[in-house]
């Protein structure tokens, strides 16, 4: 499409249902009560001149350009701040208005550089547009007077009003000389992002925009979401990519490839070069907002480290050799076939990636089941949200978050458990904070003081700072209080839940051993605080639960998911807007990769492989016989590899050698295999153990769909051709065919058609439908032709909701005198998981290395000062990193991220896993921390191994 310019209505839409009719320039218009005159005019297609108004923020009435005349009213009110009223007669243009507006513009321009031709906003400047709109022809005041434009005054003296450019942020430049102080940036930072990093310094003519305490954007609390850049009407805040490359000329609507929020973006292009990414206003997940990753951190897609040619090697100690696609695929197929001949069918398998599209994931699991003839296929959701799938399907009947993101606008009490949305899901965090600023109450359950607990104008009413590993004890205590104090929703339970199961559960949970007082010594959370939080959740109106990997990545991850589902059913907080149980999915397509049948025990749509009728449907469509037995999960594959019965694996876009727990166990498994095929953008950590490297495609090259945490299926559209010459699903189809199972698609839309044909929840989904509607939330079929924003509205998917008995069972991982601290891990805003993408962008400016957060008390007793190198050791391994001393982490607990391979955070984590799903217990590892001055043995070996394993043969001249 051509460059998409969304209509700016000037002010946000009004929410009223009462309609008002007025007349603007003689034309009648009917709009909701509370709408501004400016917006009503725009509804008619009349653009009233404006500078300080834009519909992403509330009206401000400062520029005085949007003035209008209203019959019977005095003066010339600002149309942005004047609401409509029945029967008003408005004039948007007259001689008087023209002269007043021209006078305003003349003053603005008298303090603005006239370098339009060389200005980065040339072609996209609202100030220029408005000068044109009001017919500005002269500036009678001249440019010699007091101004912010020139570093020196006309007599050569230093101009105290001038501030030089701030180029500290890696992605955008702030040029105060071009600022008109409309405050759109300040308001966007407050209202949209909720960070309050920007302010106006000084008064009157001295007013200047300042980041933080005027220490520059990078050093300030700015989170680089880009909302201010988007809001700026001039070149004052401008993307560096536009400064360097010029204005874009066409738009590709697509979906971000980072977290599970799945933001819609306009990729603004010149040719096949991305100029900038701008969040799409009509995107259902993000509604025009973005974070630093999606907005700016896409440069990895064209990074010099990208591998775009297939490579093979006989042994992993050999250098890589570049080959043709045919040779690489032939090599992989013959190795896989040899392995199966020698060790049996079950000796190979595959892993799908949540960073790939539904179509790519579906192709891989089909290849494994149909061409490999086994069910040894798993996905990275194994190590993040597999407990969500199991827990929610046992209680509610389906593995799905219950709400759309917008639902939080109606929540009154928000329970955030084991998640740090300001780091992991920043665009949703902004929504959450907005709702809290409107008065919703917040309860945070997390060992750390996350970014949600206390930030400008947001403060958790209760922060239950529990000891890692005691989630279930806390959730049971909350339920115990609600039930025993009679705060349960008896009519909801009677109507919607299985009463026999409820009776059994009620008996279980009311036992005094679940009381907050009884578990205080386990959780370390004061009982009174737990009681107060329970009462608030049960009685505060709509209660909504949002949770992350702090819930799932435990030996009782699944139990905790069930515990949260119990709590929601107990209080009737299911089946309408503003409530629910909502997983915040780690990666963009975690939901999708699970939906697509990536788990070894189930086919697409969460149907067990042992079900012969389901299997029959696939067998007929695929013309193949499927194995009715469940296959190996990722940890089981690695264990089987160490044991010698699993010898070959196809790994799509996953870096298990960095991301999976107990690195040394993972690499031992990989090293024991005869054929490891990696399909990725970069030579990642896993590729060090690979025999075949198939170059993958970045999201800018993909053509398919992602499904976000709210089950929203969004299109991913190609901005450029695949750099490797092949789509990932094409390479997979060719490998399947080379293995003896003919698989071919003309286009990825044909894969979606197959998915829709075989998966009841996707029955109506097609690329054509998505292109028409923008997006849809599954289930989308005959029963729900418009999709399903909110689940379980009329009843639970399983019929009656089932309360599950959720006893607290302590993890086998225990601290002792040798390992007295508990390590918990997480991620930070500017980096993303293993960092393969974000480490290859300007985001390293914020987070160049992983650091260890430690409480001042724990640091003091070990003689550790801020910034010192410390060793971090567990029962399975050790690493060295720098210490950051902070009270955000409680005594006895330490915290780090896993974004940088050299840190090897997962060298420390153990093999312990969730009882139901084998999801690893990343969040609880007993460790010791001490001063050191050297890298750990593992790190030294890693550096050497990395160098040896990434060698490439010199190209023939």
């Amino acid at each position, binding site marked *: 499409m051509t460059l998409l310019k969304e209509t700016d209505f000037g002010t946000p839409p009004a929410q009223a249902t009462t309609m008002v009719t007025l007349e603007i320039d003689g034309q009648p218009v009917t709009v909701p009560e509370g709408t501004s005159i400016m917006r009503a005019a725009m509804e008619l297609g009349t653009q009233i001149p404006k500078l300080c108004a834009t519909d992403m923020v509330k009206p401000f009435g400062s520029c005085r350009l949007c003035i209008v005349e209203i019959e019977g009213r005095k003066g010339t009110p600002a149309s942005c701040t004047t609401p409509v009223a029945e029967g008003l007669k408005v004039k948007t243009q007259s001689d008087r208005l023209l002269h007043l507006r021209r006078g305003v513009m003349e003053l603005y321009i008298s303090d603005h550089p006239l370098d339009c031709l060389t200005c980065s906003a040339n072609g996209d400047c609202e100030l220029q547009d408005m000068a044109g709109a009001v017919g500005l022809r002269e500036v009678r005041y001249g440019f010699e007077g007091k101004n912010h434009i020139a570093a020196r005054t006309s007599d050569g003296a230093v101009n105290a009003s001038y501030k030089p450019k701030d180029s500290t942020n890696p992605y955008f430049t702030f040029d105060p000389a071009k600022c008109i102080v409309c405050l759109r940036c300040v308001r966007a930072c407050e209202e949209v992002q909720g960070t309050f990093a920007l302010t106006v310094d000084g008064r009157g003519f001295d007013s200047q925009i300042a980041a933080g305490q005027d220490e520059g954007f990078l050093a300030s609390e700015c989170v680089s979401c880009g909302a201010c850049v988007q809001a700026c009407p001039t070149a004052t805040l401008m993307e560096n990519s536009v400064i360097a490359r010029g204005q874009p000329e066409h738009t590709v609507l697509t979906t971000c490839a980072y977290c599970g929020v799945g933001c819609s973006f306009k990729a603004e292009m010149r040719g096949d070069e991305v100029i900038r990414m701008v969040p799409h206003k009509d995107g259902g997940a993000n509604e025009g907002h973005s974070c630093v990753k999606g907005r700016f951190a896409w440069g990895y897609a064209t990074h010099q480290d990208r591998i775009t040619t297939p490579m093979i090697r006989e042994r992993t100690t050999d250098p890589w050799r570049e080959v043709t696609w045919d040779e690489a695929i032939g090599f992989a197929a013959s190795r896989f076939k040899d392995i199966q001949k020698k060790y049996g069918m079950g000796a190979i398998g595959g892993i799908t990636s949540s960073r790939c599209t539904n179509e790519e994931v579906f192709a891989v699991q089909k290849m494994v089941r149909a061409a490999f003839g086994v069910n040894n296929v798993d996905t990275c959701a194994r190590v993040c949200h597999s407990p969500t799938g199991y827990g929610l399907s046992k209680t509610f009947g389906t593995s799905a978050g219950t709400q759309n993101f917008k639902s939080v606008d109606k929540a009154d009490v928000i329970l955030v458990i084991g998640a740090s949305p300001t780091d992991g899901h920043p665009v949703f965090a902004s929504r959450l904070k907005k709702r809290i600023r409107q008065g919703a109450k917040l309860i945070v359950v997390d060992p750390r003081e996350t970014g949600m607990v206390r930030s400008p104008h947001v403060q958790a009413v209760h922060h239950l700072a529990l000891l890692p590993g005691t989630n279930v004890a806390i959730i049971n205590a909350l339920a115990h209080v609600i039930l025993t104090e009679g705060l349960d929703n008896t009519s909801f339970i009677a109507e919607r839940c299985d009463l026999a199961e409820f009776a059994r559960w009620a008996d279980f949970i009311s036992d005094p051993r679940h009381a907050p007082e009884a578990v205080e010594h386990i959780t370390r959370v004061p009982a009174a605080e737990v009681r107060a939080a329970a009462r608030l959740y049960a009685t505060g109106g709509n209660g909504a639960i949002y949770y992350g990997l702090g819930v799932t990545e435990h030996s009782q991850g699944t139990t905790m998911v069930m515990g949260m589902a119990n709590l929601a059913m107990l209080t009737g907080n299911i089946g309408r807007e503003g409530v629910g149980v909502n997983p915040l999915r780690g990666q963009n397509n975690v939901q999708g990769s699970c939906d697509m049948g990536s788990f070894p*025990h189930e086919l697409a749509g969460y149907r067990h492989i042992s079900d012969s009728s389901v299997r029959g449907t696939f067998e007929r469509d695929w013309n193949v016989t499927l194995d009715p037995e469940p296959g190996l*999960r990722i940890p089981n594959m690695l264990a089987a590899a160490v044991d010698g019965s699993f010898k070959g694996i196809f790994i799509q876009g996953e870096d298990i050698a960095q991301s999976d727990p107990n690195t040394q166990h993972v690499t031992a498994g990989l090293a024991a295999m005869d054929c490891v095929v990696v399909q990725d953008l970069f030579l990642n950590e896993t590729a060090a153990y690979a025999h075949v490297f198939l170059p993958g495609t970045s999201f800018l090259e993909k053509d398919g769909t992602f499904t976000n945490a709210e089950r929203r299926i969004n299109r991913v559209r190609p901005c450029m051709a695949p750099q490797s010459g092949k789509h990932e699903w094409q390479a997979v189809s060719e490998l399947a065919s080379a293995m003896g199972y003919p698989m071919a698609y003309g286009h990825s839309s044909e894969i979606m058609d197959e998915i829709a044909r075989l998966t009841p929840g996707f029955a109506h989904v097609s690329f054509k439908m998505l292109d028409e509607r923008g997006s849809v939330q599954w289930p989308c079929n005959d029963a729900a032709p418009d999709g399903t924003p909110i689940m379980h509205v009329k009843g639970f998917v399983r019929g009656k909701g089932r309360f599950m008995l959720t006893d607290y069972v302590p993890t086998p991982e225990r601290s002792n005198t040798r390992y007295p601290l508990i390590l918990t891990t997480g991620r930070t805003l500017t980096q993303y998981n293993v960092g393969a993408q974000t480490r290859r962008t300007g985001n390293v400016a914020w987070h160049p290395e992983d650091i260890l957060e430690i409480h001042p008390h724990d640091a003091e007793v070990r003689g550790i000062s801020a910034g010192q190198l410390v060793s971090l050791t567990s029962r399975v391994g050790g690493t060295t990193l720098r210490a950051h001393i902070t009270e955000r982490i409680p005594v006895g607990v330490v915290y780090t991220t896993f974004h940088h391979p050299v840190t090897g955070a997962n060298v420390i984590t153990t093999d312990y896993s969730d*009882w*139901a799903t084998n999801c690893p217990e990343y969040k609880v590892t007993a460790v010791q921390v001490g001063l050191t001055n050297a890298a750990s043995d593992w790190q030294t070996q890693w550096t050497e191994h990395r160098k040896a394993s990434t060698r490439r043969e010199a190209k023939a001249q």
Partner: protein
Amino acid sequence: MMAETETETLTRMANQIAGFFAPYGEAEAVKEVAAHINAFWEPRMRRALLAHLDQGGAGLSPPVIAAAGLIRRPA
């Protein structure tokens, strides 16, 4: 820490499943443990567990031992 043997790993996993179902009472726990293992454990894992059970199942909790007859024997 010494690496667990395969049997030790499977024993830990099976006991964890039994741990979850413990509050459901012995009879139901036995049934659920077997159902869970049948639904999620790949044949070679079940084979190894059954082999361990056949030898007395040292270290396995009572519901797992009682579930032996209900765990599907791989072909």
